[in-house]
């Protein structure tokens, strides 16, 4: 193959400037390998026609043939340009705006820019100044625009005194001077007259771009390699869109020439000229507004030059910014709580394909030979996976495939400088990613664990940063190839280094769903476990010794769940907070015991009181997690997370857990109460409507009578739903699995439960009751003008009891709005994100902590103006006074001061902006 990889490393060059220029007709002819005149491509025998569009002088696309210009074969010849001599000049559509500017700001008779000499000098000075102060292209554009406006506003030329007529552009490419059409020929003549010196104030460098070159007299024909034809299986040739367009141009060009030479009437020539202009315009850009796009025979619009470059599927976004990579793989993901959060399970078939390049040195040559001797699919004595070698790369860059047959001979030949491509093994560091990659935690480094099966696996605590679930999600994995990359990934990209998010200064990695439920059962009140259960829960967890048993009954030792959990905590951890299940009774503030066991108190690494739930270990909210990550570092946090994920899965397995619709059963008496409550609410609404009709309804400030009524009704019905939920809630205690999940924060909310058990409540579209549908009514089931609760979307049934047809319809209306909103939101925020990333992608923090872009311009003098790392600022508050006070004076004082919740109220709310109800809506992938 090509030069060995080593020569590609370390060649760093900076682009100092890019110059844009115009191709002159001379240059086009000079770089042309052949003049193209024949509109046909192949003759009857299937050979390319001489001076045709696929003339072999312009390169070859068929294997075996040789280029007539350079003699190269398919992969050797890069292709050569040809050219078409245009019978009459034609405007280049890409420069219409420039031409307009030039025509308007120069004199039609002498060609000078219409500014006095003094003005020219003045403007040149400004331009020079701009250059010195580092103005960019947009500044330059600003000034040249000003100059053009200045020059164009003059009616008389200051140089020759000629009176100017107004030139207007009749889009897309016709110029008119007081109604008279200027032909491209006339325009070219005018542009030719502009002296070089007058071009500089107009923002044109005359050395590389003469304005008359914007009117084409010669058209370059791109090499055939740029527009290859494809042969269909039927043997027919199908030409590229560009070739089709060039055929059109050649045909018309030919006719224009014939008609001009034979002296046809001016009218006919002008029509043909116009047609030539059309074809050349669409050849450049087939989406020019104002002209119909050129179409293929099938009616599909042709993809011409601009279309090849523009947009998401264009050359830039698809081929230059977005490149495809090797050493990567993609498959479905599934969970594995027995992996560390730092690990990723890689299936054997993938591990066999993915390789790490090992450079052979005198120190590892024996090891390298041994590896190669294993062949490409080795297993150990028990049939387990061992890493083999797929390829070796010789010092000259040649790749040799390692097979079972040749492995001995290949191993023999290995010497220093060779690269051995070893298959993946346990402990290799890889990048793991799930799209959409919205934040930096969407791509983190994991350590490999080779596992049987076909899916990538990882610890569930890592789901939140990737926003992954296992309903068919796929993820990508990239194997790092250089020592630097591996070191960097290990130091800054590893999962454990990304537990604290720079987005809100709290943990993004943490317990979800069953972790939280499991922890709840482990630690709630005085949960006890037999020795056997305890050992099961602690399976796979490192600990010094079991805690003291709390009791012994019939020879069985019982351990307190809180003590088991304490094994996971660092020995000197002290903290206290109110958990998710807190009912805000305020007893803990008075120093009394919490009847719900919601007040978590940890002393010297022992859980004294309280239940561990979402507020303690949950992703986004876990306070213990936050504290450990902040004060003990990533290693301790990783161990803590690994331990509690295993512990909680163990607990929930030992205890057993399930939920069903029966969990929302409530007694008949409660149902009756709810019914009564809802009846009362509906009657209240009727009363409100009556009051409105009679005009006795109290008007609210700033609202019309109608609005006041609506607000009152909404409030009344909202109250009714909450009331129903409250009644249902009375019968749903913590012995109920569904309630455990809702209260501990594992999944769902009490609102969801009350909608299942009590009443679904008012449906809304755009925050208002439902009014759309028929004339003055939502459905034909109701009377016109009925303003009652049922007629406008109040669903009094519960999900469990089922909805009647009108309720079902209203519920669908509300549901539909939700779906539309999510769709609109994702697409809109996606575009916003793109714009933001485009603006920020080249910024970096340099050594002196200033933020600069690639041209070294200062964006911020100190990162964030305070130089602080947002991930290390607790929940977005720079100094947490409450924390400092409690650290120094002890817990009691901080509670007395109550700084945490009052003056720094944001601390608790900040992380809750999250994903509350966004997930899982789309069903499977």
């Amino acid at each position, binding site marked *: 193959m090509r030069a060995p990889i080593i020569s590609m490393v370390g060649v760093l060059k900076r682009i100092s400037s890019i110059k844009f220029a115009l191709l002159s007709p001379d240059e086009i002819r000079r770089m042309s390998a052949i003049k193209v005149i024949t509109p046909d491509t192949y003759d009857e025998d299937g050979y390319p026609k001489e001076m045709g569009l696929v003339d072999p002088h312009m390169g070859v696309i068929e294997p075996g043939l040789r280029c007539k210009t350079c003699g190269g074969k398919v992969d050797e010849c890069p292709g050569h340009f040809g050219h078409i001599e245009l019978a009459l000049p034609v405007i280049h559509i890409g420069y219409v705006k420039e031409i307009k500017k030039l025509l308007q700001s120069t004199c039609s008779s002498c060609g000078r820019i219409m500014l006095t000499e003094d003005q020219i000098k003045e403007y040149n000075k*400004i331009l020079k*100044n*701009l250059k*010195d*102060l*580092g*103005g960019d292209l947009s*500044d330059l554009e*600003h000034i040249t625009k000003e100059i053009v406006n200045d020059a164009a506003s003059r009616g008389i030329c200051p140089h020759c005194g000629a009176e100017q007529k107004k030139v207007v552009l009749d889009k897309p490419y016709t110029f008119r001077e007081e109604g008279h059409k200027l032909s491209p020929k006339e325009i070219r003549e005018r542009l030719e007259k502009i002296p070089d010196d007058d071009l500089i104030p107009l923002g044109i460098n005359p050395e590389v771009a003469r304005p008359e070159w914007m009117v084409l007299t010669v058209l370059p024909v791109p090499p055939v390699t740029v527009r290859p034809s494809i042969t269909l299986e039927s043997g027919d040739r199908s030409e590229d869109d560009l070739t089709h367009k060039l055929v059109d141009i050649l045909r018309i060009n030919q006719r224009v020439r014939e008609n001009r030479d034979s002296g046809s009437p001016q009218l006919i020539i002008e029509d043909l000229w116009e047609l030539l202009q059309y074809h050349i315009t669409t050849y450049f850009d087939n989406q020019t507004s104002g002209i119909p796009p050129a179409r293929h025979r099938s009616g599909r619009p042709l993809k011409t030059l601009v279309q090849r470059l523009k947009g998401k599927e264009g050359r830039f976004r698809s081929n230059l910014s977005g490149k495809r990579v090797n050493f990567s793989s993609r498959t479905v993901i599934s969970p594995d709580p027995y992996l560390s959060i730092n690990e990723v399970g890689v299936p054997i078939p993938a591990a066999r394909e993915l390789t790490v390049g090992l450079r052979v040195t005198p120190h590892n040559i024996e090891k390298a030979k041994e590896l190669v001797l294993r062949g490409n699919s080795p297993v150990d004595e028990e049939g387990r996976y061992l890493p083999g070698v797929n390829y070796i790369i010789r010092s000259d860059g040649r790749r040799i495939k390692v097979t079972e047959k040749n492995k001995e001979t290949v191993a023999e030949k290995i010497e220093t400088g060779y690269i051995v491509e070893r298959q993946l093994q346990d402990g290799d560091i890889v990048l793991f990613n799930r799209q959409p990659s919205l934040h930096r935690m969407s791509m983190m480094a994991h350590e490999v664990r080779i596992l049987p099966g076909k899916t990538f696996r990882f610890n569930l605590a890592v789901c939140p940063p990737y926003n992954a679930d296992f309903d068919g999600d796929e993820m990508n994995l990239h194997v790092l190839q250089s020592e630097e990359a591996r070191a960097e990934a290990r130091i800054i990209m590893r999962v454990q280094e990304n537990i604290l998010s720079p987005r809100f200064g709290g943990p993004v990695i943490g317990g979800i769903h069953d972790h939280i439920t499991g922890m709840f059962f482990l630690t709630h009140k005085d949960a006890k476990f037999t020795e056997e259960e305890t050992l099961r829960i602690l399976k796979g967890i490192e600990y010094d010794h079991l805690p003291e048993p709390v009791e012994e009954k019939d020879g069985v030792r019982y351990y307190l769940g809180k003590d088991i959990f304490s094994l996971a905590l660092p020995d000197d951890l002290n903290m206290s907070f109110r958990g998710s299940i807190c009912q805000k009774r305020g007893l803990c503030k008075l120093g009394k015991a919490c009847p719900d066991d919601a007040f978590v108190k940890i002393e010297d690494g022992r859980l004294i009181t309280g239940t561990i739930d979402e507020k303690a270990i949950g992703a986004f909210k876990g306070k213990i997690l936050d504290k450990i990550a902040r004060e003990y570092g990533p290693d301790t946090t990783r161990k803590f997370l690994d331990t509690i994920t295993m512990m909680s899965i163990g607990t929930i397995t030992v205890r057993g857990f399930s939920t069903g619709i029966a969990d929302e059963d409530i007694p008949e008496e409660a149902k009756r109460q709810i019914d009564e409550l809802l009846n009362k609410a509906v009657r209240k609404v009727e009363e409100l409507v009556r009051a409105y009709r009679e005009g006795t309804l109290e008007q609210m400030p700033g609202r019309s009578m109608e609005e006041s009524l609506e607000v009152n009704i909404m409030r009344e019905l909202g109250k009714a739903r909450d009331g129903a939920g409250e009644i249902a809630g009375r019968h749903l205690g913590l012995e109920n699995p569904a309630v455990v999940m809702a209260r501990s924060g594992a999944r769902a909310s009490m609102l969801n439960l009350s909608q299942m058990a009590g009443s679904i409540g008012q449906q809304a579209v755009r925050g208002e009751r439902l009014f759309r549908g028929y004339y003055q009514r939502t459905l034909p089931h109701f009377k016109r003008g009925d303003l009652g609760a049922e007629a406008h979307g109040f669903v009094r049934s519960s999900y469990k009891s089922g909805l009647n047809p009108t309720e079902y319809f209203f519920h669908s209306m509300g549901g539909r709005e939700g779906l539309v909103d999510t769709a609109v939101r994702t697409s809109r925020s996606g575009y916003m994100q793109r714009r933001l990333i485009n603006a920020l992608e080249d910024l970096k923090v340099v050594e*002196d902590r*200033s933020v*600069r872009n690639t*041209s*070294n*311009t*200062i*964006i*911020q*003098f*100190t990162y964030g*103006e*305070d*130089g*602080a790392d947002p991930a290390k600022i607790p929940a977005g508050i*720079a100094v947490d006074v409450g924390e400092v006070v409690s650290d120094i004076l002890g817990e009691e004082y901080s509670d007395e001061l109550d700084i945490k919740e009052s003056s720094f109220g944001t601390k608790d709310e900040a992380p809750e902006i999250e994903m509350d109800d966004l997930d899982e809506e789309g069903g499977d992938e």
Partner: protein
Amino acid sequence: MSDAKILLHHLVPEHQIVRKEEEEEILRKLKAKKDELPKIRKSDPVLRVLESAYGTIEEGTLIRILRESETAGMSVAYRVVVRG
């Protein structure tokens, strides 16, 4: 024309004209050339007020901006005066 009142608004930070003698030292500290600094237009309302008080400010002059910050106390930024 320009109104000095705008300087009193709590969202308008303090702007100072940097003396020519100081410039070199500042640029050296920042390890930046003038064209690598953020810019401020001559037509900026604050600059107009400064001009009415101290006379014409030439293009290329440095302006020091002092922002109060909850976290950093005071943050200092510089801008180069440009045309416009």
